[in-house]
């Protein structure tokens, strides 16, 4: 028997219809091959039947691995492609919800704690009064406190669906002790059918709302910090090239974009090497840095140094370089977005203490942006290169007389700033489109952050980015995304009128201009 194309042993012959109440496992399983209505009904009854043989079938149906065979039976696909004559069964959202509920009922006593937790959540979403005995039995055996809490919530939901008023009251009380939006939704949905319990329901909803309010405030702050960290990453490179050197680099956004494409290339190189795949993002960091830094150095030596002290020409020149880079990437990679996979440790939600939910990828980007900021600070404050850079910024002539090769320092500074832009590209590939236009969306914001924070000040860039992110996210729920952005721009315009040098004004070459 070839193992590759081996079908699961389950070969279920369609049983004659009729005698529905006594339908056994085989008859119900065969009905999974019917239309969406028959599928949903069969799934629900399989869940109620409590036969564990249904679990692999339902899971396969949910993952579109269940086949309808030529003889009308169903079987789980085992090989990479369905065998001759068999057809993959498709489902819709209604069937998908039914599968989740049925699996919840079947897996509530599973030995795996993750499965039990998911099962409790699934039952809460597809609750019915029939689940009460099941849940009570499961609760009696459950030892893990976090899963107990979820089960109690599910039990509350099931009791709310019962017809007995005492059970309903117990259900409302159980749901009211949580801080779960799902529970709130259940309570509100129950209002219409339970006019006599309205006061209790309202009280329970109010209790949930109080707990949720704090959590939502924390989540808004997180969103603000997350937007701020994205702005910080995009602006840090500019804070070096524009802030320290005074070069208006309109191609900065394109360096960010190149960093993102470097990520795509590294990821494609890692594909198929299981040991490297999860680490393709960290591996992309040096690649992106080296690529953009080399390009930055070449651009500074080849073009920009001839235009020092002529900001308008520099602006036009770098704008042109940016367009060339964009079009080159479009020719090489196409105008379509490139897919960047997120490693498993960067997807999903991270639940912080207090139930605050933050998305993993954004949490990582906040950490990463602070690390890049620290690395930049360290490079400027602690290394010889940083010392020379500061010397050249403060007084180029005296620095030159001290034996510093100012031209080389200029090139390295510009390369350093460009390299940071490349690092930003690696991070942004996780939250934005990797397309040739990636950079254009960030260039304005980056300049805004640098000017607002104070040209030449890294601390200013940090505070500026975080302030803009927070203000934007605090305004957004009230004003909408478009107006919030407009309001932030107007605010910055007014602020720059009052303080043309931004939050933290510095002295140096940039300040003299």
């Amino acid at each position: 028997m070839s193992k590759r194309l081996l079908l699961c042993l389950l070969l279920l012959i369609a049983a004659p219809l009729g005698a529905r109440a006594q339908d056994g496992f085989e008859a119900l399983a065969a009905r999974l091959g019917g239309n969406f209505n028959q599928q949903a009904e069969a799934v629900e009854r399989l869940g109620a039947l409590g036969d564990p043989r249904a679990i692999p079938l339902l899971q396969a149906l949910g993952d579109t691995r269940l086949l309808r065979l030529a003889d009308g039976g169903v079987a789980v696909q085992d090989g990479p492609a369905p065998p001759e004559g068999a057809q993959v069964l498709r489902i819709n959202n209604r069937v998908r919800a039914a599968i989740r509920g049925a699996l919840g009922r079947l897996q509530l006593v599973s030995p795996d704690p993750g499965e039990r937790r998911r099962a409790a959540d699934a039952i809460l979403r597809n609750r019915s009064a029939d689940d009460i005995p099941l849940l009570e039995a499961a609760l009696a055996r459950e030892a893990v406190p976090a899963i107990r809490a979820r089960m109690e919530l599910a039990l509350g939901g099931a009791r709310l669906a019962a017809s007995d008023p005492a059970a309903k009251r117990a259900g409302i009380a159980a749901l009211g002790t949580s801080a779960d939006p799902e529970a709130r939704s259940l309570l509100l949905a129950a209002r219409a059918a339970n006019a006599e319990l309205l006061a209790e329901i309202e009280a329970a909803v109010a209790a949930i709302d109080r707990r949720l309010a704090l959590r939502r405030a924390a989540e808004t702050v997180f969103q603000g910090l997350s937007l701020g960290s994205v702005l910080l990453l995009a602006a840090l490179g500019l804070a070096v090239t524009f802030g320290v050197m005074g070069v208006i680099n309109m191609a900065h956004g394109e360096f960010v974009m190149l960093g993102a494409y470097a990520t795509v290339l590294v990821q494609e190189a890692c594909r198929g090497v299981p040991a490297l795949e999860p680490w393709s993002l960290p591996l992309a960091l040096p690649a992106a840095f080296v690529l953009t830094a080399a390009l930055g150095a070449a651009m500074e030596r080849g073009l920009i140094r001839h235009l020092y002290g002529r900001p308008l020409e520099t602006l036009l020149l770098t704008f042109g370089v940016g367009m060339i880079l964009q079009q080159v990437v479009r020719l090489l990679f196409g105008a379509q977005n490139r897919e960047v996979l997120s490693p498993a440790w960067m997807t999903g939600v991270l639940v912080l203490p207090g139930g605050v939910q933050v998305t993993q990828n954004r949490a990582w980007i906040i950490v990463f942006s602070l690390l890049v900021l620290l690395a930049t600070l360290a490079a400027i404050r602690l290394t010889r290169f940083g010392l020379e850079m500061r010397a050249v910024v403060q007084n180029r002539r005296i620095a030159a007389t001290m034996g510093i090769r100012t031209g080389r320092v200029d090139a390295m500074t510009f390369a350093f700033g460009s390299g940071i832009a490349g690092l930003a590209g690696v991070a942004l590939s996780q939250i934005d489109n990797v397309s040739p236009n990636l950079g254009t969306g960030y260039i304005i914001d980056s300049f805004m952050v640098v000017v607002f924070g104070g040209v030449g000040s890294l601390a200013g860039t940090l505070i500026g980015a975080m302030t803009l992110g927070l203000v934007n996210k605090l305004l957004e729920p009230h004003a909408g995304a478009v107006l919030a952005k407009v309001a932030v721009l107007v605010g910055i315009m007014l602020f720059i009128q009052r303080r043309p040098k931004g939050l933290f004004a510095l002295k140096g070459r940039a300040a003299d201009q």
Partner: protein
Amino acid sequence: MTLATRRALLGTALAVPFIRPSFAQAAPIRVGVLHSLSGTMAISETALRDTVLMMVEWQNSRGGLLGRRLEPVVVDPASNWPLFAEKARELLQVSRVDVTFGCWTSVSRKSVLPVFEELNGLLFYPVQYEGEEESRNIFYTGAAPNQQAIPAVEYLLSADGGDARRVALLGTDYVYPRTTNRILRGFLASKGIQGADVMEEYTPFGHSDWQGIVARVKRFASEGKKTAIVSTINGDANVPFYRELGNQGIKAEDIPSVAFSVGEEELAGIDTRPLVGHLAAWNYFMSVQSPANTEFLNMWRAYIRNPRRVTNDPMEATLIGFKMWAQAVTQARTTAVDPVRTALYGQKVAAPSGYEVEMHRNHHLSKPVMIGEVQADGQFNIVYRTPTAIPAENWSPFIPENANRRR
């Protein structure tokens, strides 16, 4: 009869048999292609350029039209709306094209419309749009709202679609989403869903930070009624939007979303595994099983020679438009705009969607409506389709000031 006329007549009489054998050298028919090849819309529009070029090659391989070769004239309006009008003028006046295929966004179409009307050009517009327009110089081969948006929302309200009783309308901030959502609000009100049960949010083009909005949708959904998202988000912004939906754990079984501007091409840039079950409404999906679609896919694969390139609804609409135009030219025996326009009315094409579509006198097609679920491989599984093709209502009954313009 003056001498001059007689000479002219004589000349024609002599010239006709003289020219006929040398049709191969006759002036080619010029086909204008007005799609952005750079800028934000390049992601969507380059595939349409490729489709027109493929169709031109296909037609030439069958001996051209009226014995003349077809010659494409490609220009790049660079996602810049005023440039669309300039490039349209260039195509019509300098390149003297006989027909143009072009535009994606409504704002670009609105920009070229006066040019095509002034110079009596012929434009085929292949994208679903908000309706409320009917130009004698434009043929609309994409869907009108009643061929996409309204059936899709109707599906969400049905038992199979999840019985939604609360709807979040999310869109990009420009004319298409705003008009479509106005129509949808009217439609939802007619179904008893209004006031606090409808949420509407707009974002700029290319918006990438969706965390706040997705969190608000989650909150909106916790009010005790089944909630669905209707997305008119356009272009690049879709990728971060779906990524945020996936990351915040919004499953299609809980809050299904239906999109009107997300097709196979847009999904090519996303990891679709967290999105399985979210919906899109179109008149064609690449996964349709029909002989005409097999032919289309074979033609496309042979032309583009890149197994990663997919087909989508606007490409199908481009193909339909091209075939109809070719049939009308053959029937009218000329490429002149006025006879071709008359010949276009009533043209029928066996579309890759598996249905026969027809061009009506309102310059719109009758098309089938299909609703597909996103699959893990970036394709769509069709969960609903109308039994027949539906005629377009380009003047929506839900926009009171234009409703009386229907015919």
